[in-house]
């Protein structure tokens, strides 16, 4: 690989890599530790929490966000960000229900179609970042607005109907296990393998860590960014399919807020907004933790207003508590955008 690195520096880099891996393991252990602790506390203190029905509900309710957050993990790890996923999810919900209109035989072609659409959107994002060096934050904020405008120009009220099969996947259980949850676990497994065990994943982390160095080391940075944006979009579309099944109808505003929740989940789970560090396991843990918190607050009849306040406070506390060691931010790193979180 990088024959230019001096042996001493190479050894130091290896040690740093191992340290990072240990830190990452600790952080995702941290979020899962919080999750297990919280779940046990809730089981004891909150009546109605520890039933199979309720726990299954939490998993089902969290599945869509989980898929979106998985996609977001990749794009943040690559040193980018994607704010458009919420509206892309909304567009998916509307198109899926409107085009299939409840007819089961159309489910597969429509699903493939929206996934293809997601890939196109992701590709457009990557092209604009690669060719025109636009900041991903501002680019995806612009495309969020375009997508939202497109959705509402098409319809201002619910349209269509989700096919029965999709509703089954999104809501029902098989042998007591929520199907949507199983889907999430399988996807997470694939994502983890992709990130940690493939050349693409390693290159993605290298790109996010330091785009210039990665490029000099021969990593095809432009192609990696393309992969990251496409994965982010696919996560949004997959989440959208689940939400379509959940709602049963194409509600245009269905995606509102998903992008921020996905980012929060990724960051809480140990993915650094500066890029180069990610944890699939941590993301899933954070998504479930957020779901448990919302469920517990509902069961405790805490007012929704307080729930918003609590969520904000938790996010802030978690960030302060898991303060990352000061990473070197290169000034003018124009091709590794969003160096500052």
């Amino acid at each position: 690989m990088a024959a230019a690195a001096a042996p001493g520096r190479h050894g130091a880099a290896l040690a740093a890599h191992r340290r990072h891996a240990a830190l990452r393991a600790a952080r995702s252990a941290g979020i899962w530790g919080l999750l297990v602790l919280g779940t046990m506390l809730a089981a004891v203190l909150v009546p109605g929490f520890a039933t199979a029905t309720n726990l299954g509900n939490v998993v089902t309710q969290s599945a869509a966000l989980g898929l979106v957050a998985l996609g977001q993990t990749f794009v943040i790890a690559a040193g980018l960000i994607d704010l458009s996923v919420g509206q892309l999810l909304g567009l998916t919900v509307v198109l899926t229900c409107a085009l299939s209109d409840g007819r089961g035989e159309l489910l597969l072609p429509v699903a493939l179609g929206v996934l293809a659409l997601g890939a196109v959107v992701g590709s457009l994002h990557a092209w604009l970042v690669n060719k025109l060096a636009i900041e991903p934050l501002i680019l995806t904020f612009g495309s969020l607005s375009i997508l939202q405008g497109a959705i509402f120009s098409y319809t201002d009220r619910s349209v269509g109907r989700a096919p029965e099969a999709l509703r089954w996947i999104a809501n029902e259980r098989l042998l007591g296990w929520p199907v949507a949850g199983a889907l999430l676990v399988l996807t997470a497994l694939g994502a983890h393998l992709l990130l940690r065990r493939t050349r693409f994943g390693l290159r993605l982390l290298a790109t996010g860590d330091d785009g210039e160095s990665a490029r000099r080391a021969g990593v095809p940075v432009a192609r990696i960014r393309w992969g990251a944006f496409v994965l982010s979009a696919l996560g949004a579309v997959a989440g959208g399919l689940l939400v379509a099944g959940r709602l049963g109808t194409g509600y245009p505003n269905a995606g509102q807020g998903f992008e921020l929740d996905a980012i929060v989940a990724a960051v809480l789970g140990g993915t650094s907004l500066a890029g180069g560090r990610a944890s699939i396991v941590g993301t899933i843990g954070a998504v479930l933790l957020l779901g448990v918190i919302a469920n517990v607050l509902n069961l405790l009849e805490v007012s929704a207003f307080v729930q918003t306040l609590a969520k904000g406070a938790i996010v802030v506390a978690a960030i302060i508590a898991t303060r990352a060691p000061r990473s070197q931010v290169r000034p003018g790193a124009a091709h590794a955008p969003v160096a500052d979180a």
Partner: protein
Amino acid sequence: MRNHPSRRTFVGGSLAFAFGGSSLLAPLAAHAQVDRAAQKKQMAEPVDTAKFKKAGPYTIGVAAGYMSNSWVVFCLQHVRWEASLHKDVKDVIVTDAAFNPGKQVADIEDLIAKNVSMIIYWPVDEKAIQPALEKAIAKGIPTINAGGGFTYSPGTTSNAFIDQYVLGEMVAQHFMTDLGGKGKVFAMLPIAGTTAAVDQLAALNDVLKKHPGVELLSAEHGDWNRAKAKQISENLLQRYPKIDGVYSPAGQMSMGVVEAFEEAGRAKSLVMSPGDEYNGWMKWVVKNKKGGAVTFPTRAGQEATKLGLKILAGQPVPRGLVIPSQYIAPAEAAKYAEMDKPDDWWASNLPAGFKPKA
């Protein structure tokens, strides 16, 4: 020297995506029609309450689609008040979906998990929550739609509602009289797709058929949001040089409309349709001596609670209980307006302990 891609292709591409995409796929949903005769029969249908009958103590679950709206805040207070009058009601649990239909589905599931005795709700999107409501009914929990419209579907046991068509018709008829039967107008309606929006527009169109001198320029959706109604009105004022009147049955939105006209200097000759008893609107009516109101009683919450308790007792109830609206002429507005209370307020019989904070 790098190749610079043509910016024109990009602009053209993205606009084409937006425009082309939206025109290629014309919305498939047909606009809902209102068949009044059929609806009246459905409202009168008796509910089979035997399967819901159970003994107390009861817990009332309220699945609010949103709470950031003064009407629903007052409606909820009516629920709490009615609940406090019954010894066998031990608790009222409220969830707020904050305009997120996915969350309202989750909220209903959580209420079921908490074993509530009944669920009172007002929807963000009526269709999206039906499957969740059906789950509640399968568990023997009756569901009651409180407020804006009549839902006739398996997920809704009964409705305590204001007949939006009758309300819209009353508003439109007084509006025609005040207009003198001719002029250019636009309509300011609630959230698109809700029964309220559909019925109010249908009533307006039916009344307009008898008044060919009045032209409807546009039907807009202000979502019961004063600021949004104001912004939409500002847009329309720019687009249309002549607007004689506005059909706006919701007083909250009427406030946004009149402010836009006032700031554009075009309010003097404006004819406003009656609004409802929203306090801000009533204050305006008292000051300007025009407009009037057709009421949209917040005690729908109280009636919904009473309906629910009757169902739990196994007593007969209809599918739809109408809470009648009444017309308030501008001259009588002073009796209903509370000048020292905020705009975001509704006249009611709530005792002091249950009124929201001012």
